[in-house]
């Protein structure tokens, strides 16, 4: 067993008044078990709770043609395991007032728990068994599928609930990042408990996974406990090829995907282009620039579309970064009749950004991102998630500890470079969900329009070769 200790265990992480101005990641211990499971332990004693996050390589990028498989597998974990029936699992969780659940996303499945330090042995016992030995009992699996299918149908009533699936289908085309994590009614229907069992066998493995435990415990004791509990988890052979590493060809011409929602009273839209990978060296500078452009109340987008014109309740822009690549998008919504006025204003703001950002505005953005940064890492749950993300996406404590320094280096000249490189105004793609009969003609000025019906099962863009 190779042990890597990054830091000395400390018993108190209270930040003293003199250290107030600079936020640092609290100390933690990291080591790897013989079976390859990476373990991070961080003591936090403000409340007598413990948070756990365990991330596994099981992810929607491995769903293949069985969209929704990864998510159904994760949701089934609490439905029964080798040593506990479904009722036993749920009784124990609820009696302890604990949370123990799992969800799946594009690049990992995360099992998360939060519980009283006093009940840790019970919850750790459950957590281990549901991760290593779930049974995927057929009757329970079918019930889950029925609920999932109903929720997929309900989601189609809400543009916010489905817009990302269309966007990923449009931007990532045949790449695995386009897999809809919740699945489709047709694919969920065809997935069996046995499929989930096989998926589990292949992707729930200690090597390549990470567990972070943050909260009220003693590190030496916890280390012994976790080593005992997860040490017997059998190491899987070989490594899992990552299909997301395949190159992505994003659409380049001017394209519009118009999704018809017959009863829409408003148009919900994305405008965007290729973005960045999570470990991009310019990540912090991009965050500062995007803060000015569309990521705070006084951002140029919100100021123009909401405050100055009252066209919408909100407009923003964001970078959704994955391990290998990501997208950039402007998002907003407005009454059907003001659709094009609003989109045109968003494009005007995009044009204005190309001229650069003055230093006073940048100073404000720098202060803003630094000022609020610590609140993202305040709770044991936030810190456990951070320690998982650092492992998955390959960044370290320097992201936190050097954040302020990196932010301070975003000068107007640097901002200009960032804008030219990451906020290019050509190659923009448009996605509109609304009443097609009223916006079809107007949409044509932005590019080739391809239409879909929101009630269709698939999000896939027909004729996407043109994109």
């Amino acid at each position, binding site marked *: 067993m190779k042990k890597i200790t990054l830091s000395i265990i400390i018993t108190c992480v209270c930040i003293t008044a003199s250290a107030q101005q600079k936020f640092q990641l609290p100390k933690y211990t990291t080591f790897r078990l013989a079976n390859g499971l990476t373990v991070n332990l961080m003591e936090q004693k403000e*409340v007598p709770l413990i948070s756990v996050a365990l991330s596994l390589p099981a992810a929607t990028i491995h769903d293949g043609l069985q969209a929704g498989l990864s998510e159904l597998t994760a949701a089934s974990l609490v439905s029964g395991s080798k040593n506990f029936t479904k009722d036993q699992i749920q009784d124990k969780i609820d009696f302890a007032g604990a949370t123990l659940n799992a969800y799946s996303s594009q690049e990992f499945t995360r099992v998360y728990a939060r519980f009283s330090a006093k009940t840790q042995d019970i919850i750790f016992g459950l957590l281990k068994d549901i991760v290593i030995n779930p049974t995927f009992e057929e009757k329970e699996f079918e019930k889950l599928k029925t609920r999932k299918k109903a929720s997929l*149908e309900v989601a189609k009533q809400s543009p916010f609930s489905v817009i990302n699936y269309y966007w990923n289908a449009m931007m990532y085309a045949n790449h695995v990042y386009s897999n809809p994590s919740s699945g489709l009614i047709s694919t969920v229907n065809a997935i069996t408990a046995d499929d989930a069992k096989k998926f589990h066998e292949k992707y729930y493995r200690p090597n390549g996974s990470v567990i972070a435990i943050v909260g009220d415990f003693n590190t030496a004791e916890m280390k012994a406990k976790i080593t005992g509990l997860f040490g017997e988890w059998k190491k899987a052979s070989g490594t899992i090829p990552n299909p997301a590493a395949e190159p992505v060809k994003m659409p380049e011409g001017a394209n519009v995907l118009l999704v018809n929602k017959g009863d829409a009273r408003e148009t919900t839209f994305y405008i965007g282009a290729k973005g960045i990978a999570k470990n991009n060296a310019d990540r912090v500078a991009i965050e500062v620039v995007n803060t000015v452009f569309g990521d705070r109340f*006084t951002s140029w987008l919100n100021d123009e579309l909401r405050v100055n014109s009252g066209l919408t309740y909100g407009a923003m822009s964001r970078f959704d970064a994955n391990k290998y690549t990501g997208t950039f998008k402007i998002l907003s919504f407005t009454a059907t009749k003001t659709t094009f006025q609003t989109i045109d204003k968003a494009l005007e703001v995009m044009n204005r950004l190309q001229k650069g950002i003055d230093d006073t505005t940048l100073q404000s953005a720098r202060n803003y991102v630094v*000022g609020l940064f610590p609140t993202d890492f305040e709770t044991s749950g936030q810190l456990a998630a951070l320690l998982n993300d650092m492992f998955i996406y390959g960044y370290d404590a320097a992201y936190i500890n050097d954040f302020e320094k990196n932010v301070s280096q975003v000068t107007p000249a640097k901002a200009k470079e960032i804008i030219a490189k990451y906020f290019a105004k050509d190659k923009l793609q448009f996605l509109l969900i609304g009443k097609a009969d009223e916006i079809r003609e107007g949409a044509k000025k932005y590019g080739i329009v391809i239409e879909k019906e929101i009630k269709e099962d698939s999000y896939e863009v027909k004729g996407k070769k043109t994109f």
Partner: protein
Amino acid sequence: MQIKKWGIAMLMTIVLSKGYSQLKPEDVKTFTLPNQMKFLVVEDFSIPNANMYLFWKVGSRNEYPGITGLSHFFEHMMFNGSKKYGPKQFDKTMEFNGGANNAYTNQNVTVYTDWFPAKAMETIFDLEADRIRDLAIDTQMVESERGVVASEKSTGLENEPKTELWELLFATAYTTHSYRWPVIGYFEDIKNWSKDDLQSYFNTYYSPDNCVVVVSGAVKFDQVKAIAEKYMGSIPKNKPPKPMNLIEPEQKGERRVFVKKDVPTFNLMIGYHVPPTGKADYYALDLLDAILTNGRTSRLYKAVVDSLQLATEISSFTENSFDAALMVVDATGAKDKDPLLLEKTISDQIEKIKTEGVTAEELQKVKNQKLITFYGQIETINGKSNNLGIYEVFFGGYKKMFDAPQEYEKVTIDDIKRVAKTYLKKSNRTVAIMSPQVED
């Protein structure tokens, strides 16, 4: 058998953990300015940040037809310019100093929330004091904000079809009290209120004695007090508003409403009148609520979602209220199932509690859940400010927050049975169903 043994052991360990939490009543320090603006302060240096939560005791319950939605609209206008900091300057200044803010309005209160690095506290006080003392209502800003609020209402309806049913439930359960209209107001009223309505609302309700301010974070009590005195001490009090005097008459028979809508699965809501927050039977009702729907082992989840599969989701909720509140059971129907069968199954489960009661273990379970929820709520500086403010405003004093674990502990099996019988009865309920099939 094994579960039960473990259950008893757990019961003991959880009880022992009580009182462990770092936050104690003496950690909350208070002062009141001569204008009766009250402050609660919690020093917490776990991160170099602080917050300020301002709880104004005004919400849609203070409105009347013609100005429905004005409390919420007013909340928006508080960001649109005052004497020293003109239009846009509130947000610009706060963000330049590394802070952010938001606000929310409900039936009872309007709450403004500021989050900032601790070193920016004085600026935050300056900004808040300026708009509380000298809000300047700009006609042009009123017009653009109308569009914003119309969009806010519209996007709520667009993305959450249940909104329509929720509004109808309240409109039916309340015939007299102002809880009967939606917080965001009627579209017609949003279009029609005037600058005078806004000014008069400001003069009536935004008086310092109508506000409780909570500050938590990396700040010292003495420093907060000195800055508060400097910036807010001289804000004059206004004439006290006329008290809201509407009382909802007792409901004397079941009410039923239907909405025909092309939804893939039906929605069912059942609302029961219950006493105001923090008043009689509050803790017993809160535990009954958890017994019904909190977690996968709750009575209703087990019966209607897991076992009979009549619904895909079920929850229940009672909003904090100054006046008699509504406890709402909210279910999303399963595909092709009968709403009336779901309704009957829910009723049968409630009847069972009335006749047979609940088990000791079940009661202990929800008490344990409440304790863990409480710790979760005070883990962050924002959770601290929010909870202290809510207890101060709705429960008659922030100290009650620290009594909550004991209050829950006192609730007995008989209390649960009794409150189920008293409040969850047919004559006291309103049933609302949204479905594609409605009898012509």
